């Protein structure tokens, strides 16, 4: 918490309209929008964009979404959006927006929960908290494959996985409600043994998910010997 910020960040870019190039279904309530940006700037893995919707009477609603794609994809970003039934923005991004449409957004934003491509990666994600850490893993794969990385990914069931095709040897999946047939671990919340099995002497540990998940996972990391000052948290507030 007290460490100085590294290199200064570029200012947050202007509002711009990005065009939906592709839509990918990740699971029944999560989809990824691939957007072409006219004023693209490279983001740091872990940063987010703000999406703003405007109604015809001028009413606006905006929410933040983490970028899942790596900065190596020039000119485009991918936002992975969890559809919240009572949300205001995420249902629009799921139900209204289609390929060829444009959506207003601004970014990249956020200079804390970011990976600058150097330190070994210890990642802990709950549900859609996997999105910003996937930007880190993808950037590592493309630019820094020699950097060690481990991901502990907690999801309710195999049907709830996000980026399932891309989870490799670096990833340990914990199912909290229902396991896959091949899983030896019983369904249940992330516990001490799960965290101890992945923890290693990395750089900062990145923990992302709901507030409750993040607090629990971070305390387990502390119990396994990780100093609180080396744990970076990203809590998913109410989006939608």
């Amino acid at each position, binding site marked *: *918490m*007290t460490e*100085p*910020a590294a290199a*200064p*960040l570029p*200012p*947050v870019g202007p509002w711009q*309209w990005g065009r939906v190039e592709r839509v990918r279904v990740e699971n029944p309530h999560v989809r990824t929008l691939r957007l072409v940006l006219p004023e693209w700037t490279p983001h740091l893995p872990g940063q987010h964009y703000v999406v*703003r*919707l*405007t*109604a*015809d009477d*001028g*009413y*606006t*609603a*905006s*929410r*933040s979404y983490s970028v899942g794609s790596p900065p190596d994809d020039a000119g485009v970003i991918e936002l992975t959006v969890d559809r919240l039934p009572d949300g*205001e923005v995420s249902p*629009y991004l799921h139900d*209204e927006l289609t390929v060829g*449409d444009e*959506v*207003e957004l601004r970014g990249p*934003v*956020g*200079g*804390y*929960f970011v990976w600058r491509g150097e330190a070994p990666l210890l990642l802990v994600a709950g549900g859609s908290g996997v999105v910003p850490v996937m930007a880190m893993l993808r950037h590592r794969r493309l630019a820094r494959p020699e950097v060690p990385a481990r991901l502990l990914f907690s999801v309710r069931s195999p049907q709830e996985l996000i980026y399932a095709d891309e989870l490799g040897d670096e990833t340990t999946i914990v199912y909290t409600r229902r396991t896959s047939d091949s899983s030896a671990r019983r369904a249940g919340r992330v516990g001490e043994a799960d965290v101890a099995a992945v923890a290693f002497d990395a750089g900062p540990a990145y923990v992302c998910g709901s*507030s409750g998940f993040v*607090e629990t996972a*971070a*305390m387990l990391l*502390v119990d396994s010997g990780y100093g*609180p*000052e080396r*744990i*970076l*948290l*990203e*809590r998913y*507030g*109410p989006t939608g």
Partner: protein
Amino acid sequence: MRVSRGFTGRRRGGEPGRLPPGQYDVGSDWPVLTAELTPRVDLDSWTITVNGRVAQPRTWTWPEVRALPASRYDGDIHCVTTWSKLDTSFAGLSVDTLLDAVRPTPEATFAVATSATGYTTNLPIEDVTGGKAWIVWEHEGRPLPIEHGGPVRMIVPHLYFWKSAKWIESITLLDHDEPGFWEVRGYHDRGDPWREQRYQGD
């Protein structure tokens, strides 16, 4: 103005003008957004210090803070992540009470609030004086929960809520502006929600 095709908006605030631009009413929820691990703060050893550009720096213990004149805030709070919480209340004391005791010197123009976690945020002195900032330990009549900055936090409710340091431990007055934790990471130095000062340059 360019419209988002097909967007009508579901969460319009009640009375017009009640919500700052780009904000929505979160209702009775109070989301937790903290970058750091929730610390453990023990009131038996907790103190608050006001120092820097002052005639007489001073540190108060919890019993000493409780003996100062009480003050409360009834109104709204606004988070930069676009939620606002309307008609809420906090009880504690006015930051004016602490500043009056230490007597800021004429060159004191900015303040830095620091948390038990090392979190910092910067504020022009005009934003923490004149009945605009509080040190609080009660929320809606109950002890302030730890995840919301309890047992004791600062609130500066006319600015975005990242300016309201949780787990407050000190206020340092300076003769210059010194950007804090989020401010060096791209967020605005002042953070006025009515002017949508979210990021540097807004």
